[in-house]
């Protein structure tokens, strides 16, 4: 039973990917983030005397290990900026703001963060800013809620400004990096939202399943029928376009017994998961075997799909009652 593939009727579904990575901090990052929690900004000094804020653990030039911590000021100078008129989800401020790189007083490198300002006309490179601390601080870069314009008009790093160069805040102060109850890890939360489309071949497969039919696709070169179809023959590397209805019954080619219950899975263990070669298919798909004690499932067992009301795919496969298939009938499909 062969028919030309119908024109694509594209399926779409929301796909949410969330990943809360738990990350441990080394001694330098632990000190820096513990410091932010306690409203102290730490940098690290290189052997060349450069003070890097935020601090890194290894010198990006020499790869030398860096551990010498210093405290710098919560005030600084904007080194470059960009006006973000339409903040995106998760960004530090919900109202229009400037992204800024800020060289804190006492530091030689700049930190990236947000600057709360009324509009782009209020922001310039070289402007003075200071940290606005988050009300609740946990030991994360977001303990800095944002930067805000500072009312001091001097730039301590400007050697032509005698007031500025005399500013004691410009001198970094050695710091032990020791804090009570130090932060040793962070949880890096992320959520990304997608709209997933499975493409032509898999759309046809899923649509047919909704009608309780299983369709594969035949390779025009080697004539094998792939189920589920992905649109290409992995042997010949060409598009598979001819749809072929297979099954509904099939043969267990191999199986395993699952003894560990998966999270959120409402199936009692032990149960059997099997490779099933549907009649007419040249590739086995996999599914759960039910309706038979787990220790009686065998290679060659003839099975058929069991659909549940409203299900978009077979819930499981059960024995048909036919005699077992000969090994020779399925040995190429194992």
């Amino acid at each position: 039973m062969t028919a030309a593939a119908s024109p694509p009727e594209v399926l779409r579904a929301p796909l949410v990917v969330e990943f809360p990575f738990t990350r441990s901090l080394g001694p330098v990052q632990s000190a820096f983030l513990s410091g932010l929690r306690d409203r102290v900004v730490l940098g690290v000094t290189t052997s060349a005397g450069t003070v890097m804020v935020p601090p890194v653990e290894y010198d990006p030039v020499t790869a030398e290990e860096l551990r010498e911590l210093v405290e710098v000021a919560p005030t600084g100078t904007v080194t470059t900026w960009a006006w973000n008129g339409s903040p995106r989800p998760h960004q530090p401020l919900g109202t229009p703001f400037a992204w800024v790189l800020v060289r804190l007083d006492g530091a030689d490198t700049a930190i990236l963060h947000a600057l709360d300002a009324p509009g782009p006309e209020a922001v310039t490179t070289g402007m003075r800013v200071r940290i606005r601390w988050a009300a609740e601080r946990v030991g994360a870069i977001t303990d800095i809620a944002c930067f805000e314009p500072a009312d001091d008009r001097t730039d301590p790093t400007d050697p032509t400004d005698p007031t500025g160069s005399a500013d004691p805040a410009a001198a970094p102060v050695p710091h032990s990096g020791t804090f009570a109850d130090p932060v040793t890890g962070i949880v890096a939360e992320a959520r990304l939202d997608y709209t997933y489309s499975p493409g032509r071949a898999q759309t046809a497969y899923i649509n047919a399943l909704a009608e309780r039919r299983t369709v594969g696709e035949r390779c025009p070169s080697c004539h094998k029928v792939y189920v589920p179809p992905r649109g290409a023959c992995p042997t010949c590397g060409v598009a598979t376009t001819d749809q072929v209805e297979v099954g509904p019954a099939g043969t267990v080619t191999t199986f395993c017994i699952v003894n560990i219950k998966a999270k959120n899975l409402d199936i009692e263990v032990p149960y059997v998961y099997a490779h099933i070669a549907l009649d007419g298919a040249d590739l086995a798909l996999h599914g759960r075997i039910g309706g038979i004690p787990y220790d009686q499932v065998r290679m060659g067992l003839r099975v058929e799909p069991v659909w549940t009301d409203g299900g978009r795919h077979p819930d499981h496969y059960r024995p048909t009652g036919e005699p077992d298939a000969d090994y020779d009938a399925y040995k190429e499909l194992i």
Partner: protein
Amino acid sequence: MPTTSRYARDVAVVAFAQSDHLRRTDELSEVEMVMPVLHEVLAATGLKAGEIGFTCSGSSDYLAGRAFSFTMTLDGVGAWPPISESHVEMDGAWALYEAWVKIQTGEADTALVYAYGKSSPGSVRDVLTRQLDPYYLAPLWPDSVALAALQARALIDAGQTDEAALAAVGARSRAAARHNPHAQLRGSVAQGDYQVAPLRTGDCPPVGDGAAAVILAAGDSARRLCERPAWITGIDHRIEAHGLGLRDLTDSPSTRLAAERAGFFDAPVDTAELHAPFSSQEVVLRKALGLGDEVTVNPSGGALAANPMMAAGLIRIGEAAARIHRGASDRAVAHATSGPCLQQNLVAVLEGDRA
């Protein structure tokens, strides 16, 4: 044949193909998108899938939103019986580098390199924030346009460009793309509103889906497969410190160093295909490479005309090679980038046999 060779083996790009780059390709799975370009380069060389010595691809799971997404596209290669294969979670230009190394080792004479990306299922500006340092940057979700805008402002403050000059880069790129049937944006495109100031819509790359493929071959194989092979006479890639505040954003020392090591400065080039997704990044790259007005930059339209993530860098190498194949260039430079604000840079020098 290269006049001078710095490597054990002479390796050339002998075929290049790319898809039409489109805003969305919902009707195609990734393998369905990749297969036509694979068939095109195989047909151009007459090679069969099983005759390829090594296969390497570039793509990103974060674009697809699924783990090991590249394994799906292997069906389009003809991966059975088993083939020698690898993958980089980067732009395909780095897959080409790996394939080039494989040929240098003598373990393969030919290689198929392909790359693809579908940005349409997600929000690529947000997706790319996940490649940033997870401690100090990623929690702030600074998107790719915002980071490029910081770089653009630094260039403007340094007096190296202005908004009008940036707009001219975008306009020139899209005008050049009129002759590129694969490009996503062609001809006149409005400069538009600020996305993240000082960058406007016209300074930013289009978001889209696309794929590309290249075949590499060594020595006599290259001569047999291609009338005028594009010999890779130099290739190198370099990286800069991850922290943006540690870098001079107005310069790209990693590009310059890679170019030096690739022999770029040994002789003039006539063509440059630069992977500069933002207009301001072309300013940085021209300076790093010391390109003058005598060099044709991005005759394809570049990434401002089509920027399929993970394929756009490989396409720069392919476009440069294609110009050599058809005799429009004798010595070209191709550049690929990855990461925020030109963090990682690959430079390849391509040369055709002189008549």
